């Protein structure tokens, strides 16, 4: 662990994390303004344009009635998976290396889910009727169909968003209290409210431990169910190449894979921009690299199985869908996906690669490009080749769709930038737990008191 090897003390962690919240440099404001500007120009303006002129502004048309919006939805839901899920699994298995990185990973979950939910709104022609998906008494006697995977989605994503928000909040209460004592003005009021009067008593720690553990136990099956349900949006149709039983594990493994790669990217950026090199170090990248290697092998295995079962079925439609995926219009993208997600991650076999920051960053970005491609291909290649040749056709995203895709990345970055100035992005108390007990380091006089 970093904290053990460096001669850090409790007060150092406190100081560094509080500094990351209260001290804001010009670079931060420039980055935030750029991200917010791109969000406005590339995400909201095209979306308003699409709302004004109709859904035809997007490139979706028969047979490609689903496009990059839904590919982005799956991508962002997938990216959300490593944060809270990994944090829960590592919490229950008592893995100390999780402690420095999990807070930001959980935030990644939260914001990915928010972007994913927004992508559904963008995909809808009339998003102002989104509340019709929720069962509530109304005079029109509108009531959702509980047999539809789309409604499963509403239930699962809402539950996951609620669970992830509460999980990250509950785990941050002690740190809110610690920051409260070191801040003044509006920040002190805000942290006083958020910390709920936490004092760090033995009783409070005991309650927090059990409540946090129960949430972790509940969230693991929930996370698995969320992406399984997303896969059923496709697998419960009768479209060749989509109607497959392996889709649920395929999606879950893909989600954890892209999420873990996302964590590597975020950790690299945090390490550089917040000067958290002492807390997020080579050992974290080493462990994440091992995880990426295992997940890439699993993902590759499932892809091979998908190809094999399609070929072995002997069905002409399945066979055509496979042939189209491997050698058709989108073949270049397919092989790019294989290169980025199945071949390049094999570099993680070497410890030297896993502990090198820049190569790991490049690999993590490559994996996520590959995983976005995978989601795009699931939709584009299958809908383009359905049963009858007269129903075949191509899907190519319009400028509006491409712009919204870029804008969704900027939206995620904007939300994350706001997060690091409100939440302590490294869990102070859990990093302290991994260290020796404090030595002679005088505490600075506190300026606040609990509610």
């Amino acid at each position, binding site marked *: 662990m970093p904290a053990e090897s460096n001669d850090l003390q409790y007060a150092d962690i406190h100081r560094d994390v509080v500094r990351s919240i209260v001290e804001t440099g010009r670079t931060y404001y420039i980055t935030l303004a750029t991200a917010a500007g791109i969000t406005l120009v590339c995400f909201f303006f095209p979306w308003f344009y699409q709302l004004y002129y109709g859904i035809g502004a997007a490139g979706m048309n028969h047979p490609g009635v689903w496009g990059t919006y839904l590919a982005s939805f799956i991508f962002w839901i997938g990216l959300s998976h490593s944060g809270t899920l990994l944090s829960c699994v590592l919490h229950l298995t008592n893995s100390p290396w999780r402690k420095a990185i999990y807070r930001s990973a959980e935030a990644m979950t939260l914001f990915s889910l928010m972007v994913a939910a927004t992508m559904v709104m963008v995909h809808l022609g009339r998003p102002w009727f989104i509340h019709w998906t929720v069962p509530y008494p109304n005079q029109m006697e509108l009531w959702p169909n509980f047999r539809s995977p789309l409604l499963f989605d509403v239930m699962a994503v809402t*539950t996951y968003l609620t669970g992830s928000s509460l999980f990250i909040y509950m785990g941050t209460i002690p740190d809110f209290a610690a920051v409260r004592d070191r801040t003044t003005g509006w920040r002190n009021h805000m942290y006083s409210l958020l910390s709920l009067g936490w004092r760090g008593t033995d009783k409070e720690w005991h309650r927090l431990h059990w409540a946090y553990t*129960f949430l972790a136990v509940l969230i693991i099956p929930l996370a698995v169910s969320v992406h399984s349900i997303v896969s059923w949006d496709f697998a419960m149709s009768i479209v060749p190449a989509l109607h497959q039983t392996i889709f649920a594990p395929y999606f879950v493994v893909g989600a954890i894979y892209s999420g873990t790669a996302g964590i590597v990217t975020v950790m690299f950026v945090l390490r550089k921009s917040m000067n958290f090199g002492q807390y997020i170090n080579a050992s974290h990248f080493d462990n994440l690299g091992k995880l990426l290697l295992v997940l890439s092998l699993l993902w590759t295995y499932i892809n091979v199985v998908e190809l094999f079962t399609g070929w072995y079925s002997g069905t002409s439609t399945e066979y055509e869908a496979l042939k189209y995926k491997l050698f058709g219009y989108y073949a270049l993208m397919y092989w790019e996906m294989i290169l980025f997600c199945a071949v390049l991650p094999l570099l993680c076999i070497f410890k030297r690669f896993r502990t090198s920051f820049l190569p790991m960053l490049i690999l993590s970005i490559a994996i996520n490009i590959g995983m976005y491609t995978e989601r795009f291909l699931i939709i584009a290649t299958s809908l383009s080749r359905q049963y009858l040749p007269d129903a075949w056709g191509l899907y190519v995203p319009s400028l509006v769709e491409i712009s919204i895709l870029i804008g969704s990345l900027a939206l995620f970055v904007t939300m994350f930038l706001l997060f690091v100035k409100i939440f302590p992005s490294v869990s102070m108390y859990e990093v*302290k737990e991994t260290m020796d007990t404090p030595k002679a380091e005088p*505490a600075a006089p506190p300026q606040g*008191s609990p509610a």
Partner: protein
Amino acid sequence: MTNFAIGLFREPHAALAAAGTLKRAGFATPELQSPVPIEGVEEVLGEKKSAIKHFTFFGGLIGGISGFSLAAGTAVLWAHPVGGRPIITIPPYLIITYELAILFGILFTLAGFFISARFPAIRERVYVPEAAVDRFAVTVACDDGETFKRAEVILRESGAEQVRAQTEEG
């Protein structure tokens, strides 16, 4: 109004030992405040029980029943026969049941945490800000000056680097 003696320690095991000595000397159960959870508290101050698990269990149960009732009730009230298949179709409804069981389980767990840890704090309680950074505090209620002196002696003998008094309203 209650008066407290507060002992500040640099090391957790010294604070824990002091709390144990105070308890054995007949003081009302001392409280520890610390920047991290301290291991072995229950061996010294007695086992702690919380009702959170019951909240989680009943939350999950209520959520599951609600989820299935919602889906099945909808199907019965707005019957939609599809090719002679059953009106109440178990496999899809189990998914709604599962999701709502987890949702309610999570919400009830949060409620259980708030109730059992007494959050949010409405009144001012005895608090040692140093214990949020790098000190371990033992707080114990003292009825009068004599008791405070006894507590102070125990705390100092156990290695407290500072002993002070604080009053809690209410």
